[in-house]
């Protein structure tokens, strides 16, 4: 097959700068929307993916498997668990067991402030740093019991809606009229904890006037999940239930499925409008070249070679739009925090989003060129040459 040179396709693009600009902008808009939707879904997914190697089990109250915040278990649970189930991971005699309280509280930036800052506060013991090993203190130190101190996650300021400097070590927050000092900052990539404030378990129990726990997180050593599960089923008096951390986050991700679908539907609706508008423009662009296409056929170029050249034109525009959209989205969207009531996550313009962009660009380039090209090529050569 004798092919048309690539130069021909490139030079054709410059024929109408207005049309080229419209196609570039239209395609870039469609691809940006797909990137934004992928960044949202990917960001949400990666914030709810516990470590691959994680062997953590969450023990919480029966009926609260969907939401740790709702759970309330007796304060004696960690002791009974470690004494009853052998095989929980231990290092140097320290069991990997973390009793925790997760509470939704309103804090204030100053004692006389009227502005409600909605915080997710986790009461922890040093055991939390053993089981949540993605948590890394980036500034300051862990909160000390009895000191009303807080460790602020790197996205906590976004969750609270205050400047990052307001949660730097040494700064204060007020809860129920009592001052709490920020003792440090932490990051916890790939978890929902980055938006939380961590404090000493006992300090939070005193502040919220509760003696129970929300849950106990433990790491399995030689024990298996079935051992913990059997324990919770045997001790019916404690009304406990066990779930692996992986299953808990998988359920949480499933809970958000309708919101993810809504995001995709929104992006696809706008993209559909953009694609149909782009097809209209391509139809008119190719239809105006019927005579030229007839001439190419009479010069001996096959229909397939002409379609290939038209597709090259369309792909060049689409792939340029992919580049524009990726640069813009990486600059404008990557890392942007999205707050969803009980959590926060960052949009992630990563390799998955880039792949989605390239795939969309390729589909736009190929599928956008075929119908108008087919319409031009179905005419016979004499008909095409006679066309206005």
């Amino acid at each position, binding site marked *: 097959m004798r092919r048309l040179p690539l130069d021909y396709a490139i030079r054709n693009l410059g024929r109408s700068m207005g049309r080229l600009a419209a196609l570039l902008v239209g395609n870039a808009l469609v691809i940006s929307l797909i990137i934004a939707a992928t960044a949202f879904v990917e960001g949400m997914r990666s914030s709810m993916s516990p470590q691959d190697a994680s062997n953590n089990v969450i023990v919480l109250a029966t009926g*609260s498997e969907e939401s740790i915040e709702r759970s309330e278990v007796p304060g004696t649970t960690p002791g009974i668990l470690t004494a009853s189930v052998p095989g929980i991971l231990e290092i140097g005699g320290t069991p990997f067991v973390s009793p925790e309280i997760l509470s939704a509280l309103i804090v204030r930036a100053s004692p006389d402030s009227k502005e409600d800052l909605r915080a997710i506060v986790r009461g922890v013991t040093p055991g939390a740093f053993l089981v949540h090993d993605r948590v890394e203190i980036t500034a300051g130190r862990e909160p000390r019991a009895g000191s009303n101190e807080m460790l602020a996650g790197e996205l906590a300021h976004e969750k609270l809606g205050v400047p990052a400097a307001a949660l730097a070590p040494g700064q204060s927050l007020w809860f129920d009229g009592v001052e709490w000092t920020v003792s440090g900052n932490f990051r916890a990539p790939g978890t929902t904890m980055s938006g939380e404030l961590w404090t000493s378990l006992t300090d939070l129990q005193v502040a919220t006037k509760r003696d129970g726990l929300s849950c106990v997180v433990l790491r399995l050593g030689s024990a298996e999940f079935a051992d913990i599960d059997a324990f919770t089923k045997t001790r019916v008096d404690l009304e406990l239930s066990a779930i692996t951390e992986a299953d808990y986050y998988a359920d949480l991700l499933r809970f958000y499925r309708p919101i993810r679908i809504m995001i995709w539907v929104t992006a696809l*609706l*706008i993209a*559909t*409008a953009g694609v149909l*508008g782009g097809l*209209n423009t391509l139809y008119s662009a190719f239809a105006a070249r019927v005579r030229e296409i007839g001439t190419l056929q009479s010069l001996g170029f096959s229909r397939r070679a002409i379609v290939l050249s038209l597709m090259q034109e369309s792909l060049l525009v689409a792939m340029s739009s992919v580049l524009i959209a990726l640069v813009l989205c990486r600059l404008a969207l990557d890392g942007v925090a999205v707050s969803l009531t009980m959590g926060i996550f960052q949009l992630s313009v990563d390799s998955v989003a880039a792949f989605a962009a390239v795939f969309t660009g390729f589909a736009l380039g190929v599928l956008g060129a075929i119908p108008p090209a087919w319409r031009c090529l179905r005419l016979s050569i004499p008909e095409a040459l006679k066309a206005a």
Partner: protein
Amino acid sequence: MIRPRMLPLVLKYIVRHQARTLLTLGGIASAMFLFCAVQAMRDGVAEATQETADETTLVVYRENRFCPFTSELPEDYGRKIAAIPGVAEVSPMRIVVNNCRAALDVVTYRGVTEASLRSMDLMLPEGSIDDWTRRNDAALVGVRLAERRGLKVGDRLSAAGVTVTIAGILTSTNPQDQNVAYVHLDFLQRAAGNKQGIVTQFNVRVADSTQLDAVAAAIDEVFSNAQAPTWTSSEKAFVSRAIVDIVRLTSFAGWLGIGSLVAVFALVANAISLSVRDRIKDHAIMQTIGYPEHLIARLVVAESLILSLLGGVLGLSLAVLVSWFGSFTISVEGVSIVVQADIATILAGMAICAAIGASAGLLPALRAARMSTAEAFRAV
């Protein structure tokens, strides 16, 4: 704008390029579908949060808490609240949700006393309050929750570790009632965490709406030094605080709605420009046989208007169907936002389509009308 006898000509222009027309209509329909969905969401937020002068309901919540899991008040606060001057009625309420996060399929249980339930302005198309009183685990479920979960009287509903039997389906003018399951207060206190004597909030009806703020302040004053101090606000202000993230999401969605309208404008303008360019010969002939310039311009604007309205009807009808059959409700922290396209949304959408159609066709119409006959023939 144009005489009815010219209408067939405009319709011929529209159907002449079927592929172009279908692509344009599809694009407009997609954009208007999205516009309608965004508008329905904004209307739902406004309905749930806009305060009115005749509001008489206060919500008493635990101070410095959000999410029903963390608000715990002693049930006996009810007696002290009832004694405050201006208070007409106090309804203790225990609220249990399967999740505090914002989502589309949240089940909210509201545990109430029989007296509170009877005082509510509820309609029961199926079942009755008497049926509800007969069973301890009975529930009256809001119509949207029933539609979404496919529930009917006699069915069992299980969520948040609580299982209830449906005794009736309720409707109400209050959007908060349409997505909840009303159960017996003592049943819910025992079934969810063994919390006898503990409630999440009190709903307080004030005798005089002008006394709302004064009564709220008086309630908070009574409990300011108590073990569990309170935060009292109007019901709408309470909902506004709970859905702060959804409000943020809605304002972002507002931009999407504006983007949809820009897309509709661009699609119609593009299609009409292409259509006018294809018809230069027709316009030249029309001018030669005596059609005035303004008539040619009006024909182009009419074509743009019809195209835009057709696409609008398509998209808006689809959005209305989806919203009616989907029974969408966004819930967060036990409060609900009903997302449903109503007649006002459709009328607003049609008016916007008409305005966009007319304005998008204006420039191509002027260009077509101003082209001289000789110029038009030369362009062919």
